[in-house]
Each structure stands twice: as C-alpha cells, then as structure tokens.
C-alpha cells in the first residue's frame, strides 16, 4: 500500500513540482496516472520507491515512511521503470542488464537463468540476449528496461510510460501481463499519455495538473468525460469520440471498447428496424 499525504516537492533549481498531493493506492490496485506535460507525474512516482524524498508531507510504503528507510530496501519491493530507458540501462549485454538485479537480490543461478529466459520471451528480446542494449532500437531498449524489472517479480510495479515505442502486439502482451499481475494481488502503477492503452486496460485513473491531482476514478468514467480530460490536456479515446458525436441518436456516451461499440451499434440499428 502506498499512502501519500500532503506531498510537496521542490527541485533544487526551485521549481515546485508537487503542491500538496494526497492519495492512497491499495495493494493489488492497477492505477494509471495521466496528465499534461510537466504536471508532476514522474516526480510523484519517483517518491514511491524513495528515489525522491518529500520536501514537505509524507509518503508511506507498506506502512514505512520513505525518509526512514533506504532506497535499496524500498526498491526490493517496488520495481521502477524509467520514462527514458537510457536513464536505466548500463550493462554491456541485455542478459547482464536483466541479471543484475536478480544477482543483487541473491537469487540462485538456476532461478536467475529461468527468469532471464522468461523475461526475454515475454518482451520479444530472445534474439538480443548477447547484444548491447545501446545497439537496439528505441522500442527494444524500452523493453529491455521493462524486462530487467519484471524479471525479479516485485510486489509493486511502477512503470513510467511503459508503452513508448511499442507496437500494438507488444502493448497487448504488456496489458495481458499486467492483468496477470493483478490476479496475483500485485500493485501496478503506470504513468502514461497513451489514452488508447488506458482504454483497453480500464484501470483506476488519477489525473494530474500543475503539481496536483484533479480527478480520481474509474478509467471508463474519466475517459468519457471531456470536461474533466480537457483540464489535464488529454483527449478522449477514439471510440469515445465517435460516441460523443452520436449522442443525438440516443446511444450511450461511455463507450471505449471497439467490440462493445460494435455490439451497441448493431443492437440499436436492430431496434430501429423494428
């Protein structure tokens, strides 16, 4: 569980990036944090594993205040994937990158081998096992960063923009993986601008603006309320946009899924024919 109380954060340069954020993320929740550029999303989630410490207010992870423990202890439970993979990758090969944390956390050889293979397959990286992460494409580098964290199966996952550079198939695999994490009772927090990905996952959505949280609710509800989205510089998912324009036909407005959309259109046309 992550408890944030009246969190303020100022960068050394003087920028006040968080201006009194309070929220609770329960164990097992799947939360997407969205909002305009510079709203403070990355700054906020960096507090969840102690990378940043509050200038004011408190952040508690599983009951322990982040100022009263070490980043090392916090990161054992909370895996963090950076927005820009280049801030994270440092090893000479993809394999070493993935095994680094596993070794650090004292897993035995056999488990390490199993986990590496599993992560490489999940993220379609098997052919790059011995390649340097710096010689990979942008999307591939992001997947190496994801693999190195998913491999040690942390209790909480914090993913800053996990879908950047990913094609549709990779995103779908990531979505299925997150669903699986949830069935295991794990907590997943993503920061994302990818409205369509959020529409497909339908998590709890936290909207941020100017260093504060301005809305908090179910994905479907928030993503289909244009007034709420606009203040955080977010546009509706495309299916919701279509249905918003069809309001006069008496169709529902809160539709975000293509297949649901299909059913609704067909059912309503059928009704009209009768």
């Amino acid at each position, binding site marked *: 569980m992550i408890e944030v109380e009246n969190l303020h954060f100022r*960068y050394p*340069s003087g*920028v006040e990036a968080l201006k009194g954020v309070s929220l609770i993320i329960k164990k097992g929740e799947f939360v997407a944090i*969205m*909002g*305009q*550029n*510079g*709203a403070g999303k*990355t700054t906020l989630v960096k507090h969840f594993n102690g990378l940043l410490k509050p200038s004011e207010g408190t952040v508690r992870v599983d009951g322990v205040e982040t100022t009263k423990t070490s980043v090392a202890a916090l990161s054992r439970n909370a895996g963090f994937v950076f*927005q*820009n993979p*280049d801030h994270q990758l440092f090893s000479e090969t993809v394999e070493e990158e993935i095994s680094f944390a596993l070794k650090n956390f004292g897993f035995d050889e056999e488990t390490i081998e199993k986990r590496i293979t599993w992560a490489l397959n999940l993220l379609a990286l098997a052919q790059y096992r011995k390649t340097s992460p710096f*010689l*990979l*494409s*942008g*999307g*591939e580098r992001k*997947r190496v960063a994801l693999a190195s964290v998913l491999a040690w199966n942390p209790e909480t996952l914090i993913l800053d*923009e996990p879908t*950047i*550079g*990913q*094609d*549709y*198939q*990779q*995103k779908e695999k990531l979505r299925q993986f997150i669903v699986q994490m949830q069935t295991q009772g794990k907590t997943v927090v993503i920061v994302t*601008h*990818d*409205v*369509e990905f959020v529409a497909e996952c339908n998590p709890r959505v936290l909207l941020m603006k100017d260093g504060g949280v301005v809305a908090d609710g179910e994905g479907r509800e928030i993503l289909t309320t244009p007034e709420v989205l*606009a203040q*955080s*510089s*977010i*546009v509706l*998912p*495309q*299916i919701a*946009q*279509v249905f918003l*324009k*069809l309001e006069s*036909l008496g169709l529902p407005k809160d539709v975000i899924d*293509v*297949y649901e*959309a*299909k059913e609704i*259109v*067909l059912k*309503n*046309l059928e009704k*009209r*024919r009768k």
Partner: protein
Amino acid sequence: MTIIETKNLTYTYPGGTKPSINGVSIKVKKGEFVLITGPSGCGKTTLCRCFNGLVPHFYQGELKGEITVAGMDPTTHETHAMAKSVGLVFQNPENQLFALSVEKDVAFGLENLGMPREEMRERVEWALKLTDIHDLRERSPHEVSGGQQQRVAIAAVLAMQPEIIVLDEPTSFLDPLSAEKIFEVIHELNKEHGITVVLVEHRLDLTAKYADHIIIMDEGKVCFDGNPREILNTEETRLIGVGIPKATLLYHILKKEGLKLGDVTPLSSEEMAKLLQEAFKIK
C-alpha cells in the same frame, strides 16, 4: 516531383549479423505527408538515419543501393550540407539536446547556418511559441520533464524550416492534447508551405488522418506502400502489429458483420461518426 527516392537500399550496422533495412525502394513526392509505421525493430529509425546521411557517415557499416534526397546523395554529401534541407527529430529527444538553455538549443542550427541575428531571433521566438515552451526558454534542457524535452527537440528542427522534416516518433513523450496541437502545426506547415513531412509513428489514432501516403515496414522490408485508407483497412496490417486507428477498426468490424457503411474507409472519429449517422438515418 520526387523528393526522396531509394532503390534497393540495404544497410547493415557495423558488427550486425543481418541488414536492418533490406532492399527498400520507396518514392516520396514533394509536399507529401508520409507516415511510416511497423513493428518495433523493423528498421524505421534506420531508414530515417539514411535520409540525412547519419547512416552511413556517423554509424558507418555497409550501405548498398541508391538514395537521393532533395536532389542530393546523402552518402556523398556531408551531413551538415544535408541539414539545410532535411531536419530530423530524433526518437529520443535527449540525444538531440546539449546546449545550456532551451533557447540556445533551438537557436543552435540557425547559428550554424550563419543566419543574421535579427532573423534568427524571430525564428527562435516563432518555434518556441509553436511548441508552447516560451516560458521554459531559460531553463536547462536537462532540467525539464520528458515531454518538455521533446518539444525543445521539435522546436529546434522547426526553427530551421527545412524542405523536408523527418520526425521519428516525435510525440511519444507528449500529452495527447499537445501531441494533437503539434501534429496540427506540422500539418499546416505541410499544406501551407509545401514542406514534405515524413513521420514515423505507432499511434495511428492521432496521425492517420493527416497522411497522404503510408509505408508499412516489417523486418527491414517495405510490405505495404500506398493509400492509407486502402492499406489500413486490411487484415494483414493488423496481423503484423500495426495499431489500426480504433475508428477504422470499428468500420472494418461492422462491415464484416454485413453493415452497409459506404466505401471510403474512415481514418478519424469525425469520419466514422458521420458514416454511422448516415447508417442510422437510412434505417
């Protein structure tokens, strides 16, 4: 008039075991808005690097085949000569930023061109405003958020007003409304000023509607090349992992169910909503 042409272009990075682009033959007309997409790792960035000569000048390796860009051969022209005609926005904005302030980063290319001070100041102002980073101009580009960095990278290229703008996933860090605004700006430059735009993107929901021409790559090869409305309405594009716009997908699915919806594949929510309104009127 053709402004970019490649014939059988094949390139292998140094030490690479297989070509990252393989037998690519494409033609881009002057003034076109071209969208390049395809699965992660298929060679999109590598192809972009050929357009301004980074491949092979910077990356070395082995380049075969022919390439002409704005009447020049990037393999023999020096990269700074190409830079006047071709502006490339990098996939990772951080690799493009190095100056001490946002403003200096945006001005850097213009200084290299030897542009008069007054004109330069105007261009920089214009680019900072278009990308909405005027307030950040004195900040260090390394002390701003991810999306703010990406705007700096875009502003730096727009400021140059090159004949061809190549954008490699230019909005992956931008919030959706800002991404939309930037695409509107780029679309306007394309339509009003005839600037040729080559855009690499996975998020077709935001971009398909602007494209005159789409190129889909897979494993280093071009597998579709033509009209976006025709190409995005095929089953094959979906199977290789292209994120078809949801409006287009809905059209495709409803047609398969036997619904009559007109023959022009929609690429945006506006177009799809119109088709549905028609369908509801008839019944």
